[in-house]
């Protein structure tokens, strides 16, 4: 190709050489005939014709005509853009932001929703969801029924649909003997989990069946991250022994970088030790995953598991005297779903909403750019008319206009990639913590492809408007232009008007979405979460494993001791602990309770959420006591049969909080009746947008299941401290020291203020809110700019008409109103269309809304009104310029 280009240069020179000689010879001839040389030269030239044109024709014989005239066009376009840098920069920046934002959001969407999970043959992976619609009360705190150990053992032994099945649960363990004691996140996995996920070990080997040892002494595996962090990536770590919850465990291997158990980022993999003969039916706390046999559809797997549930009830029991088929009441049914759905979870709607939102902003930006291009094309009307008159084809002019917009689109896209890169970093920083697969988010080939597509599409989109306007018809192209026409042609104004209507409609949809999110957020803020002033409430988690302290009574004493030390810290006004704190996502304890004096024969007793609290916890958390009183330490150590219930539960069982005091209930038949000594307000355990579950609060130490003389203590509890110093590093250090002063082997974990937990539970809403608010603001600004631009252009185009009207006696205020009115009509039409669209689209956002209807009348009234007021202002400013027009000047001009 290069060779051809160089050869061509020579050919061109030879051609002009030929032609020069031709001219010279003809001139000589004429001179010989007696003509003066000067005249002869002129004559020869005239006879010869247009040398430049001939040279071009000659050259064209050699060119790849299409490509090269394209290159020439692009050269012209670049030159022209360079001559109006303001225009070029405005357009490219607008597009860069629009395309960049879209690319960033698309990258997230692609990484989270579209890309397959990072396991081999991920389409075979499923999560074993079970629904239990017949278990009353369960839905208040659980969206599904988790698996029990016996279920897993049944499924693993008898299924026909799966290659492998496993269950797991997140947990924590303290690692001691290395440096400072450290609380790490563990994934407790049964056999079959690693086989299901099927990712080979990075070093060493997988846990084997021998590690699933019911004495709990199996080996462990490390995550890549923990291995790097704690062992500096030492390959000799395999085979070494570490102390997990004070027990020596051999390290079997290290999993590769980025490996997660479903969506859980663990530090240490600990084998679950099931007793294959003595497990019970109950104990629904494990998450099940499985790998389907090739070609087995979900429905078949569902059917398989459904039949296995009968086998499960036939094979296991909850102890002597219990009816294993009682669970038929719960109507347990499998709802097996692709593992990806489990990983992605509820973020799906948010991401699609954000993507759609950003897409609409892009459309609005394109509309604005199209408007700019139209104005520019108007200014070039004369030039285009001249070219058209000289024989430039319609296609040729259209092509050039389109090419110009494509060039702008591509420039914008190129700049957009860097915007997207920055945007992604921002997004991963401010995005909701529950955003899954965060570490997998990246700009990949798909994203770049998407950018390219978007650049081209947007270029075509906003370029098509002026191209269609100017190319197909020469009717409006007059050499003199429209300067003498009285007013701007209706047709030309109509295109611009349509764009304003579209912009207003799109902006309205976005603004309504944003306002609905704001109102959702406000509604959530007004909900009493069941605790007060979260910013001054410090929380930390602490586990006392039975391998460290075997005796439950000692555990309680140790926790009491720690509380005393924490209370003695400066600035601490109150302390307490509970097995779980609201919104922390801890796996809840739950079961049914029986009320004294009520006959439960044949009843399906509702499930209640359980929590276990220390004296002082409610006061510290700011959970109001509605009736009765708190536990005392004396009662805890006496193991008095007492309990506290939530307001909702009290009302349900006994009618009112006051009536509940002194009543009795128990969990199982041989348990002593427990007396209700207090009723506390309802707590939004799963987030302010979820119902408050009916809750029973037990003392943190109770008589064990095996009767008097046995103890049962909560070993993992959240300590809560009320202090204005909450959240400061000094405070956290003092807390750690206070704990270590009781036992130096106790690591603290999950240190945060209640405010952090509270905000995180609302992160999805606030993220959507922020994104929609940004998009809505951009849309409003762009829309107002659009209206301003159109009116101000109309005013400048209609100066003559205004002059005539004024000369004929029109009042200035009437003229201003004329323009404002036209803007209001456009806005009104746009708003009407937007309202219709919003009414349809907001329903899709329903799951993101709280405490507000997707057709909230306040929002649907206020937003259009605001928009119309803004439009009136935006049109009034340029319309006022009419008052400055001097009719004499206007008529005399040109």
């Amino acid at each position, binding site marked *: 190709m290069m060779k051809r280009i160089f050869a061509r240069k020579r050919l061109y020179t*030879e051609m002009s050489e030929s032609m020069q000689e031709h001219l010279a010879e003809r001139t*000589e001839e004429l001179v010989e005939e007696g003509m003066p040389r000067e005249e002869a030269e002129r004559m020869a030239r005239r006879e*010869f*014709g247009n040398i430049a044109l001939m040279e071009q*024709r000659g*050259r064209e*014989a050699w060119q790849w005509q299409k490509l090269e005239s394209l290159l020439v066009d692009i050269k012209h376009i670049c030159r022209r853009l360079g001559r109006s840098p303001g225009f070029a920069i405005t357009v490219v920046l607008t597009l860069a932001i629009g395309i960049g934002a879209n690319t960033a959001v698309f990258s997230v969407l692609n990484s989270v929703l579209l890309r397959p999970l990072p396991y081999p043959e991920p389409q075979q992976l499923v999560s074993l969801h079970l629904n239990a619609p017949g278990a009353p009360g369960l839905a208040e705190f659980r969206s599904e029924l988790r698996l029990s150990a016996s279920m897993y053992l049944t499924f693993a032994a008898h299924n026909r649909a799966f290659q492998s099945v496993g269950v797991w649960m997140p947990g924590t363990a303290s690692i001691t003997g290395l440096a400072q004691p450290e609380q790490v996140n563990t994934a407790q996995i049964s056999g079959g989990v690693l086989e299901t996920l099927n990712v080979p070990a990075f070093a060493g080997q997988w846990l084997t069946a021998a590690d699933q040892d019911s004495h709990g002494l199996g080996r462990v595996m490390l995550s890549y991250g923990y291995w790097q962090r704690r062992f500096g990536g030492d390959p000799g770590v395999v085979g070494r022994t570490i102390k997990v919850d004070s027990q020596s465990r051999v390290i079997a291997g290290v999993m590769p970088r980025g490996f997660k158990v479903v969506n859980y980022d663990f530090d240490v993999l600990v084998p679950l030790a099931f007793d294959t003969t003595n497990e019970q039916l109950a104990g629904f706390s494990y998450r099940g995953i499985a790998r389907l046999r090739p070609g087995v559809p979900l429905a078949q797997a569902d059917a398989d598991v459904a039949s296995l549930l009968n086998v499960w009830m036939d094979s296991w029991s909850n102890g002597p005297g219990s009816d294993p088929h009682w669970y038929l009441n719960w109507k347990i049914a499998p709802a097996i779903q692709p593992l990806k759905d489990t990983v992605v979870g509820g973020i799906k709607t948010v991401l699609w909403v954000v993507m759609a939102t950003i897409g609409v902003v892009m459309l609005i930006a394109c509309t604005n750019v199209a408007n700019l291009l139209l104005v520019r094309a108007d200014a070039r009307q004369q030039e285009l008319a001249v070219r058209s008159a000289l024989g430039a084809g319609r296609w040729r002019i259209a092509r050039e206009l389109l090419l110009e917009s494509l060039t702008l689109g591509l420039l914008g896209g190129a700049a957009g990639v860097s915007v997207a890169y920055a945007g992604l970093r921002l997004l991963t920083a401010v995005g909701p913590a529950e955003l899954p697969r965060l570490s997998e988010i990246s700009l990949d080939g798909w994203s770049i492809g998407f950018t390219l597509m978007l650049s081209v599409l947007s270029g075509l989109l906003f370029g098509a408007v002026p191209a269609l306007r100017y190319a197909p018809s020469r009717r409006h192209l007059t050499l003199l232009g429209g300067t003498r026409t009285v007013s701007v042609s209706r047709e030309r104004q109509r295109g611009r008007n349509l764009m304003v209507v579209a912009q207003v409609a799109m902006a309205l949809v976005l603004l309504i979405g944003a306002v609905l999110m704001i109102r959702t957020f406000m509604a959530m803020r007004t909900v009493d979460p069941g605790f007060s002033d979260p910013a001054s409430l410090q929380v930390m988690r602490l586990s006392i494993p039975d391998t460290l302290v075997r005796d439950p009574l000692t555990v309680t004493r140790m926790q009491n001791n720690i509380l005393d030390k924490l209370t003695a810290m400066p600035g601490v006004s109150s302390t307490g602990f509970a097995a779980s704190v609201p919104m922390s996502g801890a796996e809840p304890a739950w079961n049914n309770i029986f009320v004294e004096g009520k006959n439960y024969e044949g009843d399906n007793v509702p499930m209640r959420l359980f929590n276990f609290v220390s004296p002082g916890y409610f006061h510290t958390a700011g959970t109001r006591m509605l009736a009765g009183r708190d536990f005392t330490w004396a009662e805890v150590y006496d193991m008095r049969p007492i309990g506290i219930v939530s307001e909702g539960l009290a009302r349900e069982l006994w009618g009112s909080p006051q009536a509940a005091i002194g009543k009795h209930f128990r969990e199982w038949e041989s348990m002593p009746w427990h007396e209700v000594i207090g009723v506390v307000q309802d707590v939004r355990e799963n987030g302010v947008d979820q119902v408050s579950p009916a809750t029973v609060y037990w003392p943190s130490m109770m008589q064990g299941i095996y009767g008097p003389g046995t103890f049962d203590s909560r070993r993992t509890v959240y300590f809560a401290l009320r202090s204005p110093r909450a959240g400061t590093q000094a405070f956290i250090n003092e807390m750690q020291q206070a704990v270590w002063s009781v036992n130096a082997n106790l690591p603290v974990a999950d240190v945060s203020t209640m405010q952090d937990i509270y905000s995180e539970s609302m992160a999805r809403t606030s993220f959507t809110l922020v994104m929609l608010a940004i998009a809505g603001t951009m849309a409003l600004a762009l829309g107002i700019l659009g209206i301003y631009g159109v009116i101000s252009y109309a005013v400048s185009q209609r100066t003559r008409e205004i002059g005539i009207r004024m000369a004929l006696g029109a009042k200035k205020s009437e003229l201003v109103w004329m323009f404002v009115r036209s803007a209001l009509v456009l806005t009104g039409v746009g708003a009407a269309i937007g309202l219709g669209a919003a009414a349809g689209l907001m329903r899709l956002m329903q799951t993101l809304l709280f405490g507000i209807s997707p057709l909230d009348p306040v929002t649907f009234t206020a937003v259009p009104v605001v928009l119309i007021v803004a439009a009136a202002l935006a049109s009034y400013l340029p319309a006022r310029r009419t008052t400055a027009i001097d009719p004499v000047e206007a008529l005399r001009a040109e």
Partner: protein
Amino acid sequence: MAKNPEHRDLFPGALEIMILQSLRVKPMHGYALVKHIKHVSDDLLQVEEGSLYPALQRMLREGWLESEAGVSAKGRPTRIYRVTDAGVGHLEKEVVSFEKMFSGITRVLAVAGS
């Protein structure tokens, strides 16, 4: 060269045939070619420079002609065009089809005349 009002457009390919035939007789440079055609046709045919030079380039590209450096009758450097074997082949093919067409036209005209 003022436009001759009786001048008619040549049919497509005619210019090429004349250029090829003229150069087949003797390689020439551009100006000589114009003069040659004008002279041989007794001023009946005029070749416009506007058509000639682009046509020469097209024929060079097709490989019917080749060019070499040379000097004009007045001793100035110029390009001398020469017919290639491919050019001769093309010319013969074109002449045959031209003759067919011409005899066809003649017959039609003869019928109209009688």
